[in-house]
């Protein structure tokens, strides 16, 4: 047997050059690219602040809006900057119940973001699995699954959500279920598309020729290469889920009054807008707007960064 070392020296004498690019994980590379994009950075900052406000609500909020003992009906509908009987300043005013709007918004954000993230995550897992399976199985299975997706996508999301909530009733868990039902098809469609492209590529063929089990071909080889478009869709869908939940709550069929989300806060103040007490609806509305815009800015930038045509 010839000495492998001798072999390797003859190789390095050849013309091959070793690319000197430092190894950087794709995740880190994407994040750095995000920071270099001005719009994305704005989006990250807005979303970050709102996220922190939501997470730290119990610590930061001047008042617990659920604790009826802290509320005073006498403070109801105070204008922004107004002071309470106990000397507390309501920077964004109060609602009809005398609730501090700053606190209510922080807690509302909590609910909205929680519902958005959880429903998007569940829909992502379900949709991705179905999409991957559909692409890998192909043939009749693929056709049937994709027709279901077609049917699902041909109904407006809000209609499907309305029907489900009418059947299930109110509650955080119920609205999450409704949102998952309306969203999974988008993920399935996206993942199936990119998985189909990937499954034709030689490395999948190579994996098959090495007799790797299907499970590892799907999850170790196909899935990581389908992630870029999935991440973009997921970001946009979180924003959409939050908006849909706000719409449903605004219509009064989403969350119960005891767990007010941003949508419910807007709806609460709606009837007073014309009587001049604009702030009860206005500030939760602005917050919702900022959150959606922030997330969408990140999503847009991700779409540009992860676009395969951009990679040289």
């Amino acid at each position: 047997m010839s000495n492998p070392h001798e072999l390797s020296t003859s190789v390095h004498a050849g013309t091959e050059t070793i690319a000197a690019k430092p190894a950087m994980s794709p995740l880190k590379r994407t994040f750095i690219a995000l920071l270099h994009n001005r719009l994305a950075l704005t989006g990250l900052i807005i979303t970050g602040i709102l996220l922190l406000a939501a997470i730290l609500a119990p610590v930061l909020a001047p008042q617990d809006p659920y604790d009826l003992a802290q509320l005073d009906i006498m403070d109801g509908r105070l204008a922004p900057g107004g002071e309470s009987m106990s000397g507390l300043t309501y920077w964004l005013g109060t609602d009809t119940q005398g609730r501090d709007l700053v606190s209510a918004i922080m807690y509302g954000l909590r609910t909205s973001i929680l519902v958005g993230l959880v429903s998007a995550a569940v829909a992502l897992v379900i949709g991705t699995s179905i999409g991957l399976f559909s692409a890998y199985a192909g043939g009749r299975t693929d056709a049937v699954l994709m027709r279901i997706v077609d049917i699902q996508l041909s109904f407006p999301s809000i209609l499907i959500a309305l029907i489900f909530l009418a059947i299930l009733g109110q509650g955080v868990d119920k609205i999450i279920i409704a949102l998952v039902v309306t969203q999974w098809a988008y993920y399935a469609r996206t993942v199936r598309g990119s998985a189909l492209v990937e499954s034709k590529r030689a490395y999948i063929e190579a994996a098959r020729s090495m007799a790797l089990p299907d499970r590892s071909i799907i999850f170790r080889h196909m899935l990581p290469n389908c992630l870029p478009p999935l991440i973009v869709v997921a970001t946009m869908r979180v924003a959409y889920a939050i908006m849909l939940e706000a719409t449903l709550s605004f219509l009064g069929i989403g969350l119960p009054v005891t767990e007010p989300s941003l949508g419910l806060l807007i709806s609460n103040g709606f009837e007073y807008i014309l009587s001049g007490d604009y702030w009860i609806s206005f500030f939760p509305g602005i917050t919702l707007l900022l959150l959606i815009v922030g997330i969408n800015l990140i999503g847009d930038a991700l779409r540009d960064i992860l676009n395969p045509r951009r990679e040289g």
Partner: protein
Amino acid sequence: MTRPILSIDDLNTAFKVGGEWRNVIRDVTFDIAERETVAVVGESGSGKSVTAMSIMRLLGPNARSTGRIEFEGQDLLSLPMDLMQHIRGNRIGMIFQEPMTSLNPVLKIGDQITEVLMQHRGMDQGKARAEAVRLLDKVRIPSAQARLNEYPMSFSGGMRQRVVIAIALACEPKLLIADEPTTALDVTIQAQILELIKTLQQEEGMSVLFITHDMGVVAEISDRTVVMYRGDIVEADTTERIFRDAAHPYTRALLSAVPQLGSMAGEPRPLRFPIVDMRTGEAQPVKPTADTVRTDEAPILKVDHLVTRFPVRKGILQRTVGNIHAVEDVSFELRKGETLSLVGESGCGKSTTGRSIIRLTDLTSGSVTISGRDVASASKTELASIRRDAQMIFQDPFESLNPRMRVGDAIAEPMVTHGLVNRADARQRVGKLLEQVGLSPAMADRFPHEFSGGQRQRVCIARALALDPKLIVADESVSALDVSIKAQVINLMLDLQEQLGLGYLFISHDMAVVERISHRVAVMYLGEIVEIGPRQAVFENPQHPYTRKLMSAVPIADPTRRRVRNISNDEIRSPYHDAGYTPAPLHYQEVSAGHFVQMQAVEKAA
């Protein structure tokens, strides 16, 4: 002495990369005289195409060229864009590598030619049409008149390239720039196109600037040759002198790595390529290969009457209306330590044969036995264990590695899943494998994009070796590599065959490489083996007309052996047949020990 048509002086082209200007070609200087063919040759990244693009000023705003490009007394670099537009296509014609992408797929061929004629030569519709027919006749497209109304998709690759040439000739240019015009074509078609370019050059009195990576093509076509290496001209001389006694070590290294058809006459066994040092130009002596073929053991691969057809379905009911007969009645055996090459042009079924053998494609009938186990009837678990014995190496090393997986993990994965080693030992074994293919174990932590093409193919070989296979199916495994890298990878494959007694099924369209590496050769045409036998017998005494045609089409990297060739303008036929078609049974005649030739219809009838 007459003035040259094109005179390039100190041409530098730089690209803007991340805010910095990076020089891609440096001080390129050469002339093209009237009626002369100059070849610019080099490997990928040598700057040969950038040179061509710079002349035409086709590079985008991210590039900048300095120096002087004098064409018919005008400096092209200082010409305003609208005047340049007039030169392009009018005085200088250009043809590219990929004929499909240089034609507009939704416009009829005739319209694409007449458009140029009306635009540049101010002809009216009727005149332009007559001229278009004349041009198509000129590039030897049969029944030109009728084909004017067809779309590019109904033309074959070679015919498309002819159309592109016709368009380039439309304005009777003084200079034709051909950028790898035959690289995407089959070897018999390549020979036709090269022949056509030579004839046209004489008829039209053009000069030709020919860009290529193929030393064989250079030797066939050019009067003078410019050798480029990483953006610099290393040598420029007459083609004869370059091939006879090249001065620069790089040129010599390049030439020594070029496999030459016929150079193996009298050699009983495969031969390594001499590796020439890039600095000194000295060649290391070649170690002869050992006799690795184990005739004493049962063959590791037996293919018996293999048939693979792909149904073509049409209509709402998806009825099968016909079949692509990709592989028809193919039989052969392969022994341990032996290399059998399947050689043929695109669409001849060589790749499908390889894929059917490890059942990446299901076979229609016949049987394949690997180490005594039947592949066709194997269950999923049996197939998994068969695939441990038979591994595949693909053409494109970048495509066949998962881009998001470190190569160490990619190599370890099959071993771990098949339970050969546990995760802890895997790392060590990966290091050993990487060393075995000439890489360093530390490279295990890198991603595929951090390797060069040749290194990536080494990684693929290491991964194929991970399962300790007996048989490796190498599907065009060296075709995408630059010539010097190709030589190194082939040497590696020969080393591994000696060390591990591997059997190779080497699938390739490159006759010269096949001659170098194989013990036995099977020539395929339209899904059938037309000739099979020991390499020496097939190459030195080809019997079947197709084998002869294939061999005469291979360009020879030796300008003194340039021949007048009689090249028919045949196209490769289609392997499609309507449903219900049964091919006639094949009969073979043994012309010498182990050398079988398919008998032709005439002989069969006799």
